[in-house]
């Protein structure tokens, strides 16, 4: 080996040795720190302190601080009641939440108040049914405008969004609300349309978009009249359900056989028998497709960051998005921004003749669903904290003050910029669900994909395009409904298990003790629940039958 090489090996040796020493030192330091951390973990609370944990995936700025503030208030309030309580908050990134959530529920000891997600089966199997507890008023609402209301009625939508339709049961309550709004780049809007008066009807909005497109071509600028977050199809779904309700809110009278509320199978039965034309369900597709022509090219592949990037770059006139980061959007956009509601389908529009105008927004935007797993060790405290979190004063503290979001409760006044976000409530027309999007997670995803294709390809008859494509997906949709039916039948078995446990409870307790009353009450609730499961099974079977009988567009019912 040449001399040059030899000393290099040698002096490299010294440099290497330094490297090894550094690495070992770094390792030793980290071992010491880890041991110290373990020590830190063992901050055991005194035995009589009751500890519960709240877990969620909301990492937006303000949310965690808001929850911490609520926890501080709660611990103080409980201390006054002489109960020592400690509440821990765990925030999990959204990317890892599905796996974390499922594994905690199945394998481990889940948090006591947990943000819920996933299919109805998972909710029904792992979360406590809350319907027995929502009838009475929320104890933490004393001295507030919601004092006389039951816990259920204290919510802006009467807990409609928290109702799990598959099991007709409440497994969670909602904590915040978002509405969908249009953020308008006033500088660009004024340049293109020559006015500062913003459109309130669909016709005016489409007219403004046409002008914006022409302005873009004239100026050779890549102007995008309507910017949407295509990536997770949330906005298209929102537009579709808005116009579906404006066109079809009357279906909840004709389309319901058992009581107020549309049943999907019943609607398809009426289509098969010719009593109802499928057009009534498809008109919203045509409306959204017409709006879609003004979306950016390639919008499905653009996510929220890029859409905001384009908006701030000044090329997007109307940016449609939820109100979760509206506050920061408005304040630091390099041009004046105003907020308007989704324009209403007006009579002048060719499809607007039968439109019922704006419908109440109470049902749509309420989210942040928190439930209590069955495996919780302290159900009574968990329920108490959940009611505290959804009490009038505290919910506003967390949502309105810290996150600048809207509370999910009634009687909440908003001022300043947030006034434009307030949901529409001065109408008696309630939102209804479209059979295309509300059968299950898979059929919803397929429906929104179809809607997206319809916008991209702009077929000359969007209704036929969407309907015939829907028929191709039928097999997968029926498969999903069948899986849901098995879920309900499995559930009948476990509900009979509940019945037997309650029967043993009755046999156990002395004849006239208070326990017997509670067991009989819960036994009745269980049996009433079994009757509603029969309704769910029959509805699913009818839905599968009617789906199978549907024919090509225009050929149904003759």
């Amino acid at each position: 080996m040449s001399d040059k090489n030899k000393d290099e090996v040698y002096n490299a040796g010294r440099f290497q040795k330094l490297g090894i020493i550094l690495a070992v030192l770094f390792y030793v330091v980290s071992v010491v720190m880890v041991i110290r951390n373990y020590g830190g973990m063992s901050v055991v609370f005194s035995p009589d302190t009751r500890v519960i944990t709240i877990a969620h995936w909301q990492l937006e700025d303000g949310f965690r601080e808001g929850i911490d503030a609520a926890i501080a208030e709660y611990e103080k309030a409980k201390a006054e009641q002489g109960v020592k309580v400690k509440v821990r908050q765990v925030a999990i990134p959204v990317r890892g939440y599905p796996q974390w959530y499922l594994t905690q529920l199945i394998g481990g000891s889940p948090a006591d108040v947990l943000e819920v997600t996933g299919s109805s089966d998972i909710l029904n199997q792992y979360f406590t049914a809350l319907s027995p507890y929502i009838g009475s008023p929320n104890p933490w609402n004393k001295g507030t405008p919601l004092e006389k209301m039951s816990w259920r009625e204290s919510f802006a939508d009467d807990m409609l969004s928290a109702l799990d339709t598959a099991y007709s049961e409440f497994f969670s309550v909602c904590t915040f609300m978002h509405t969908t709004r249009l953020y308008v780049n006033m500088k660009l809007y004024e340049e293109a349309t020559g006015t500062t008066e913003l459109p309130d009807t669909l016709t005016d909005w489409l007219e403004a978009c046409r002008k914006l497109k022409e302005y873009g071509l004239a100026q050779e600028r890549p102007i995008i009249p309507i910017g949407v977050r295509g990536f997770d199809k949330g906005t298209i779904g929102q537009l579709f359900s808005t116009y579906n309700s404006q066109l079809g809110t009357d279906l909840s009278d004709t389309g319901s056989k058992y009581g107020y509320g549309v049943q999907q199978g019943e609607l398809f039965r009426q289509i098969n028998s010719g009593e109802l034309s499928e057009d009534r369900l498809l008109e919203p597709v045509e409306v959204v497709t017409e709006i879609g022509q003004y979306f950016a090219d390639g919008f499905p592949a653009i996510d929220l960051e890029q859409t905001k990037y384009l908006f701030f770059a000044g090329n997007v006139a109307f940016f449609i998005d939820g109100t979760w980061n509206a506050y920061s959007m408005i304040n630091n956009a390099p041009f004046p921004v105003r907020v308007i509601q989704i324009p209403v389908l007006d009579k002048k529009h060719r499809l607007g003749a039968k439109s019922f105008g704006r419908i109440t927004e109470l049902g749509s935007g309420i989210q942040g669903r928190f439930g209590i797993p069955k495996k919780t060790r302290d159900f009574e405290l968990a329920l108490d904290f959940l009611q505290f979190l959804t009490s009038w004063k505290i919910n506003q503290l967390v949502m309105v003050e810290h996150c600048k979001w809207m509370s999910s409760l009634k009687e909440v006044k908003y001022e300043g910029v947030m006034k434009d976000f307030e949901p529409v409530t001065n109408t008696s027309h309630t939102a209804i669900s479209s059979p295309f999007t509300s059968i299950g997670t898979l059929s919803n995803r397929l429906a929104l994909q179809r809607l997206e294709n319809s916008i991209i390809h702009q077929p000359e008859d969007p209704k036929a395009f969407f309907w015939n494509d829907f028929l191709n997906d039928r097999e997968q949709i029926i498969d999903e409904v069948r899986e849901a039916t098995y879920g309900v039948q499995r559930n009948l078995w476990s509900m009979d298990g509940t019945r037997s446990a309650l029967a043993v409870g009755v046999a156990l307790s002395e004849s006239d003790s208070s326990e017997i009353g509670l067991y009989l009450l819960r036994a009745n609730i269980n049996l009433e629940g079994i009757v509603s499961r029969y309704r769910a099974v029959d509805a699913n079977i009818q839905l599968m039958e009617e789906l199978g009988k549907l024919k090509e567009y225009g050929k149904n019912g003759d």
Partner: protein
Amino acid sequence: MVKPLWVLAVALAGAGVVGAEGSGTGRNTPHEALKAYAAMDYTLAGKLARQIPDTPEGQLVAGLCDLYDRSRQDIGRGQLTLAELFYNEKMPLDYRLEAGVALARTAQLMKERRELYGDAGDRYDHEKIFRKVMAMAPGSSAARNAFLYLIRERLEDPAQQEAAFEELETFLRDFSGDPKLLPPIHLLAEYEYIRLKNDYKTAARHLQEGYEIGFANPSENRSGLFRLAFLYHKKIGDKPLAVKYYKEYLERYPYSGQAAVAQRFLEELGEGGK
């Protein structure tokens, strides 16, 4: 359906046996077993029941755990234990009733899922057991449950439909037990009259009777009242009763989301003012 042995072997090899079986047969283990089962703590209930196999409580709880504890389910053995208990006159009545209802119901459910259970459900004639339970304790909640499970199946079968509807009416009329047990039956009656016979008048009557006794689930009470008004309004066309119940709904639930809808329907019926 026990997990294949070699899967358990692999798991145990790594997992190491977790804590030996808890011993200690205290004086009131039977009572403890029932309490654990009532709280649906299947693992504890099963363990305690296995310690007292010859007592009635041990037999009942062991049988029920075999049926409903999904992680260690052994339906065949469970049904066998419960059948012995049910047909043994010397056993306490409460235990026999519960064993009978659980045995018959699971057999009935297995017959509905033949693609899963094959003909294992045919081993017990659930209708005969349900009838026997109803005869043993006519006014009890066990009889009420047995009847509901039975009548639902008979209504599904077109041949027995007419007879089933009559039996439903007679059962409700001469039920000797506590009337508070009947609302779920009325709820089923309302639903089946609409589904099978489109007879909204009788359905509304049953809903009304059930509502007057009072449903246990508060949300069922609320939606039931609105449904009652809606049926009279849109399906039967009995204006005064519709107005009466819409108004009652607005009094009891003024803040509810559907109050606005009730108000709209009242205006439709020409009774704008509240």
